[in-house]
């Protein structure tokens, strides 16, 4: 248009024509298209292009829907897994790792980060372990393409930082962006703490291998169920790995009252009851307080019952048997007790040696001394810090004292027994005593069975087997129309613009055609004018030559200026012609 604007002077200035388009930039040829004509043309072509508009709109609206059909995004369902178990307190974890203490010796607290029940770091990737995935798949009727490998590829696990660690990470990341070397170092050394929850996501669309183009999809409900089953299987894995599901040992069925002497049988019975009691006592308070839905009794109740049973039944019988020296073979029993006494004495000697040795070490042990130099002043502070080994020794010594006390009590008991049995007159075992022993053994066996059944119920209960709690798998793809709405609007608008453009062009083409016809006519006219001029020139020349030859004949010569066409017509005149 610039060129056209530059040539305003040559544009026609008809006041009746308000807009004139110059479509020919050729300086030699100029033409204009009347928009009114174009719209008029559009009106004339509306029968065709109204349908083109409809077609383009339809394509614009339908294309996104069709595209969605063929390239639908895969659904991802997610679930928040929250760990729900107890872990050894932080101060015990190092000792546990070293093996200097056992789990039974540690104190526990509810898990607040990603620590495993044994105090080690929890490997959350076990969610994708073959055991977990295969357990989840077993029993589900899914396509073959959905197997452990493809499932693993479609699972993602995201751990969640604590708010404090998140802030630290963000601030350090900000410094790292500023290329701060110190920030890099701090970022590397930063101890990030995670929450006791993580998110597991499963995406639909299973490829048999990476190069495969075939994608197998399962139903949304199946996908959600599969994730739920995976997390349930993960909980089972945690239970199997970490839960103490050891049932009490049956120490009663092995007591052969017919072979053993009465006191030996009673000794084994008492030891069995003590063992069962200790087994119950070692359980956490939550387990002890659990009430059975079958009996309404708790483990604490059973412990009390065991104590009472031992007191009123076993010890009662034992007292009678030992005081009256009721035995099948007094000498054999004495020999047996003497042997047990000697063993206990040997053990005590060993423990006493340990105590003495440990005491020596503790007396001569030198703990660390810590000196702190103060920046503000030259003064230095010092403090003493016990080493881990020293503290271990101290606690070991306490354990030695406990062991020695137990052995001393045991020795005193054996010595007393031997003395009394030796002094007493042997009494033969009566049927009554045998029957009473049999009743005691049967009662103990029944009690053991009850405790075992109680523990089996506890081990199967949700209270004991919940190591993690996961929310229901959630995830939803937008609906067919909602997902494509934006694209449909864009498609519709583009289609409409395209159709209108085509319509406009179609209306414009006739105007072009008209203009080109005009130009052809114009060029033809110019050609005629040229030939006319040529003919006129020729004619003038021939007249001139005739006049000249006449003048020559008369003796006058006229010079002809080639640049000046004498008698040549102007452009306007030519036009007029």
């Amino acid at each position, binding site marked *: 248009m610039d060129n056209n604007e530059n040539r305003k002077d040559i544009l026609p200035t008809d006041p009746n024509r308000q807009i004139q388009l110059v479509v020919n930039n050729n300086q030699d040829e100029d033409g204009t298209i009347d928009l009114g004509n174009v719209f008029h043309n559009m009106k004339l*072509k509306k*029968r*065709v292009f109204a*349908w*083109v508009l*409809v*077609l383009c709109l*339809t394509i614009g609206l339908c294309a996104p829907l*069709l595209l969605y059909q063929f390239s639908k995004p895969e659904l991802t369902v*997610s679930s*928040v897994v929250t760990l729900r178990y107890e872990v050894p307190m932080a101060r015990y974890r190092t000792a546990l790792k070293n093996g200097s203490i056992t789990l039974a010796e540690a104190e526990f607290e509810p898990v607040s980060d990603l620590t495993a029940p044994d105090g080690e770091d929890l490997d959350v990737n076990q969610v994708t372990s073959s055991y977990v995935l295969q357990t989840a798949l077993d*029993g589900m*009727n899914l396509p073959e393409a959905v197997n452990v490998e493809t499932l693993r590829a479609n699972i993602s696990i995201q751990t*969640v*930082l604590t*708010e404090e660690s998140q802030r630290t990470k963000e601030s350090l990341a900000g410094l790292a962006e500023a290329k701060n070397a110190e920030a890099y170092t701090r970022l590397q050394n930063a101890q990030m703490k995670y929450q006791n929850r993580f*998110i597991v996501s499963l995406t639909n669309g299973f490829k048999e291998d990476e190069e495969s183009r075939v994608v197998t999809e399962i139903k949304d409900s199946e996908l*959600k169920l599969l994730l739920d089953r995976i997390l349930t299987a993960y909980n089972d894995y945690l239970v199997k790995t970490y839960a103490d599901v050891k049932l009490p040992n049956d120490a009663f069925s092995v007591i052969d009252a017919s072979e053993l002497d009465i006191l030996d049988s009673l000794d084994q019975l008492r030891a069995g009851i003590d063992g069962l009691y200790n087994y119950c006592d070692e359980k956490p308070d939550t387990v002890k307080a659990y*009430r059975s*839905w079958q009996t*309404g*009794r708790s483990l604490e109740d*059973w412990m*009390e*019952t065991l104590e*009472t*049973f031992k*007191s*009123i*039944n076993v*010890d*009662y019988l034992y*007292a*009678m048997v*030992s005081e*009256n020296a009721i035995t099948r073979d007094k000498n054999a029993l004495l020999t047996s007790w003497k042997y047990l006494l000697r063993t206990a004495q040997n053990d005590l000697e060993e423990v006493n040696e340990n105590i003495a040795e440990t005491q020596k070490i503790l007396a001569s042990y030198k703990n660390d001394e810590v000196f702190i130099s103060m920046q503000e002043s030259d003064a230095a502070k010092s*403090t*003493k*810090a*016990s080493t*881990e080994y020293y*503290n271990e020794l*101290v*606690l070991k*010594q*306490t354990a030695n*004292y*406990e062991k020695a*006390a137990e052995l*001393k*009590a045991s020795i005193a008991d054996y010595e*007393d027994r031997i003395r009394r049995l030796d002094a007493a007159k042997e009494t033969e075992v009566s049927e009554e005593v045998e029957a009473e022993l049999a*009743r005691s053994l049967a*009662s103990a066996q*029944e009690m053991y069975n009850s405790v075992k059944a109680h523990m089996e119920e506890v081990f199967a*209960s949700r209270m004991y087997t919940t190591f993690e*709690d996961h*929310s*229901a798998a*959630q995830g939803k793809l937008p609906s067919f129309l909602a997902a494509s709405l934006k694209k449909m609007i864009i498609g519709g608008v583009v289609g409409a613009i395209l159709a209108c453009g085509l319509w406009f062009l179609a209306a414009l083409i006739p105007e072009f055609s008209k203009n080109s016809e005009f130009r052809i006519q114009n060029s033809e006219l110019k050609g005629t004018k040229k030939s006319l001029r040529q003919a006129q020139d020729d004619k003038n020349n021939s007249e001139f030559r005739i006049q000249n030859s006449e003048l020559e004949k008369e003796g006058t010569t006229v010079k002809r200026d080639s640049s000046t066409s004498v008698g040549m017509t102007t452009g306007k005149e030519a036009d007029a012609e």
Partner: protein
Amino acid sequence: MKKTHWFRNTLIVLICCGLVGTILAAVLFSGEAGSPYAASSIQFSFEGAADGKAPNGYAFDVSGLTSDEVLNEALETAGLAGAYTAEQVRGSLNVTGVYPEKIAEQMTKYVSLLSADAGTQAAVSDYHATQYSVTLYNDFDKSISSGKLTELLGAIMTAYRARFTKVYGPSLTKTDPIANLPDYDYAQQLEAISESVKQQSRYAEELAEMAPDFLLSGKGFGDIAVQYESLESDINRLDATITLNAVSKDRERLQKRYETEIRTQQYQLDSLNEELKLIEAQVDAYDKDGIVYVSANGSLQKVGSDDGTYDKLVKKRKEVTDKIAEINAKIALYQSRLDDMTGVAAKAAKAAQATEGAEDLAAAEELTAREKKQLQETVDKKLEALIAKKNEIEADFSVMLEAYTAREINEKTVFVDKVKYKAPGLLSGAFAVKAIKTAGPLCAVGFMVCMVLLIISRRKEEKAR
């Protein structure tokens, strides 16, 4: 061609495309469609259900619905026990929690943000579904009738509700853990009864705390606990009679039992006292670590640490002293009983009485054989009465527990919806969606083709004009 023809033709093409698409959808649907199924839902509205807690206060889930017990019982009820196994049915049983849209949205938001605020986290991870949809698909036997499938699911729901009531309702053991009580001596019998009464009293107190508003005929669990307390005072009175009068079936045996016990406990006490001395020495000798706080850049920094060894030693010392106290109490108890039995206490009382010049005390006198026999008979009667009273309270307690279970777990609090049979047929919503998705593109393409043809035709008309 006239305009009306084109509309008609376009309509025909659209209908044809729609029909083809629907037929195609039907073919595809028949290949993809799942098995027919029976569906129902179960809704929990008891107290604590929304917190994931069962009526008994423990964690709750619906996994019991697919347990062997429930499935076997349901198969038995539906008369299909021989035909199918619990394992077969379990594979076709789908239990899904119904979550509100809001929670699903929060979850999606939480997953996408990963740093949602605490409120969102709590809502997402602590939400527990109270409604579950239960679907039994018929993919274990295609020949099973719709009626049988529906009946089976109904039986499963019923069996589960029964199991739920059993498992999550409180119960009371009907038998004493220590059997053959009459075989024991009086003191032993009383000890066993006392222990049992204490346990049940504790249970009643727990329930009173859990359901303070529960009343049956104007009485609550607290009242049961009070009844047990009253029983305990009865036991104490009877214990006094037995102990002070040395009433026993076999006096000599009981005496030896006490002597043995005192002796054994004494050995334990001696060794524990020795242990205590050593531990005390250890506690005194232990030098606790010093801790220095250094002020740097306006903040205090702690230097030195305490791993709790000293505290552990002190704790150990406390354990030993507690144990010593316990043994001392035991020895004192057995000694007093022994004294009562041997008459030491009576002699002492007599001596005191003589010193003070007071009147003779009947209880302090040594009893004659006839009196002893009479006393034994009295104790026997009292024991019987005690046991009868205990049984009576137990019966009241059981009735109350049943009433409480009925209040907590009933048709309203565990509501099972009607079982419906559904087969994914051509009238189902799933097919409608499939048909729209298949026929829709075909219709769109058909419409486009019609438009192209119409345009070409109009163009030709234009040219011809």
